[in-house]
């Protein structure tokens, strides 16, 4: 694994067993997360973003299971660790921030106690005073007065709770933070401030962040690279400037044009026809083929590879691959 890669996901497949059948929510996905980057993971509801995020920590409950793949995190394959070894990785080496932090905070525990206890769970040798000092310092650094640490989670605003979660990841010196829709329930002003904070932390602590969101604007604002998922597959990955300026996958192209942009004069939005498929019965060939304006015959039968188009800008689209090009030539 190259030294600049912190996390390398290889051919990951995650399935949910449901009464109606097996839902493959992540289907043969590969993705690299580079050290020190903010990688934005976007895609529409149900495309598998959260499932992928949880799989990176092997955090699966109920009907979900990892059906295959490798999870290379900082030099080792997490798939080979025992379940007993995972808690040391989860929460400590990999921090988590969810859409609703109330679910990860204890409602009857003061914030300060929660922070110090969590630090002590992962670092048993640390003293109460040191753990407390570290919590206070970080929380203050994130713009919350230390007196407020004596409050319970419900007394804090949504934006503050998100900052508490991030400070916890920092306190444990996490190498990677997975933030799943961290700003979705926040108002735009609080969201803007939280995104500024993420960028500062990235610079100051060299933090690596996987930012899962359905908000294209949020990705444009903070991400260095962007990964676009569609129907459990990776559609496109690349530098954020490149992908926004020159999207390769027709899905990305349509998606970007259908997002309202307050700075544009354009009076109309692009209207992408159709809707994402039901993952119980995904279409054969390329999953986007029923909605694709450039669909070719071959797209209905052959699945595109996820392959580089230019440099390390990847897309899974036959337009850029041998099979598709051959067909293009045939039909002029």
């Amino acid at each position, binding site marked *: 694994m190259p030294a600049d890669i912190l996390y390398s996901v290889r051919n990951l497949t995650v399935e949910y067993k449901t009464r109606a059948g097996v839902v493959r929510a992540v289907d043969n996905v590969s993705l690299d997360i580079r050290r020190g980057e903010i990688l934005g993971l976007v895609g*529409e509801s149900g495309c598998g973003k959260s499932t992928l995020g949880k799989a990176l920590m092997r955090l699966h409950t109920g009907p979900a299971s990892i059906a295959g793949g490798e999870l290379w995190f900082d030099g080792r394959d997490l798939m080979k660790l025992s379940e007993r070894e995972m808690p040391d990785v989860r929460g400590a080496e990999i921090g988590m921030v969810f859409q609703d932090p109330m679910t990860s905070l204890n409602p009857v525990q003061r914030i300060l106690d929660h922070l110090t206890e969590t630090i002590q769970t992962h670092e048993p040798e640390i003293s109460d005073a040191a753990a407390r000092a570290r919590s206070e310092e970080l929380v203050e650094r994130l713009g919350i007065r230390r007196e407020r640490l004596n409050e319970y989670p419900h007394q804090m605003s949504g934006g503050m709770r998100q900052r508490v979660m991030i400070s916890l990841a920092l306190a444990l010196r996490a190498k990677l933070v997975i933030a799943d829709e961290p700003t979705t329930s926040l108002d735009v*002003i609080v969201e*803007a401030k939280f995104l500024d904070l993420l960028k500062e932390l990235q610079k100051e602590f060299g933090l690596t962040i996987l930012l899962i969101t359905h908000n294209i604007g949020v990705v444009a604002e903070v991400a260095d690279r962007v990964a676009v998922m569609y129907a459990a597959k990776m559609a496109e990955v690349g530098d954020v400037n490149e992908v926004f300026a020159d999207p390769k996958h027709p899905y990305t192209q349509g998606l970007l044009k259908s997002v309202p942009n*307050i700075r544009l004069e354009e009076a109309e939005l692009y209207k992408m026809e159709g809707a994402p498929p039901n993952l119980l019965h995904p279409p054969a060939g390329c999953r986007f083929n029923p909605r694709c304006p450039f669909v070719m015959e071959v797209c209905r039968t052959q699945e595109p590879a996820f392959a580089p188009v230019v440099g390390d800008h990847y897309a899974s689209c036959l337009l850029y691959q041998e099979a598709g090009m051959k067909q293009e030539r045939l039909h002029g």
Partner: protein
Amino acid sequence: MAEPKPIANEIAASVTGPDDLVQVENLRKHFPVQSGFLASLLNRGHIPAVKAVDGVSFTIRKGEVFGLAGESGSGKSTVGRLILGLLEPTEGRVVFDGTDLGSLSPETMRRLRSRMQVIFQDPLASLNPRMTIGEAISHPVRIHITNQPDEVRRVVIEILNKVGLAPAEQFYDKYPHQISGGQRQRVVIARALVTAPDLVVADEPIAMADVSVRALLLDLMMRLKEELNLTYLFITHDLATAKYVCDRIAIMYLGKMCEVGPLADVYEYSCHPYTRALLEAVPVPDPRHRRKEPMPAGEIPSAINPPPGCHFHPRCPIARENCSVEEPALRELRPGHFVACHYAEELLK
């Protein structure tokens, strides 16, 4: 400092004319806060209240899309429900097409209500899971249009086709869980529009929809507006979406209106510091874009004890002493563009 102009101008934001469909005058809605016996003792019988809507005046003109924006808890939905007559105002009044809602008998109110419809954000919550789509849409038809079974079916099929749920006969017998989220929102739209209402209150109508489906839903709503001569009150916290659909827009903060006017003018010449901040905070889907102004400090305070004077003053970058004492009135700074800020001129470049 600019003299806070007298009430005349406040009413001017809601000048009445033959083109007005809705007039909202000095509307207030206070919700008493549940508090224990001890708390009420401490408060000496004074019951604290959430001032959800606290003195709001505006008009909605026939045929326009009037946007109502602001952060969570600013009172947008409460204004919507007051206009629909679903809530009784604590003070002030709503006049719908010349009729004061407060003066109506329940029977007249019921008839008037067929002229106003609502589209909520969550289609699953607003559809009965045990009712087919055809049944759900038939319901308002039977109440407001006709009881004749063939006729009901014809009207429903027609609106299903209009909202793009075709072939309509197929959708008629489906249940909500058998169709996609975007299709469900189309059903909700169809149900709201089938009685050809005059006013539609759309409360975050596309917030739950997928990004790629949103543009289609907006387009549908706007096409039907033209076709059926509708007027929309479009409630949203998304100023980017509002830009594509609203003719005029009002920005709310803690139960009050801080700015209202033609959308293009408000966006181009926003002169309330809060509107400025909101517009600046909207994420822009372009990595080259950088925010220029710093965000205001803190978060929205509680609507139970809002700050005195101008509600925004504790977070305002240009606040001065009098802002914590004197409440600014809405005044007209540009044609049809009203703002409630003592120092708005400073932001008007």
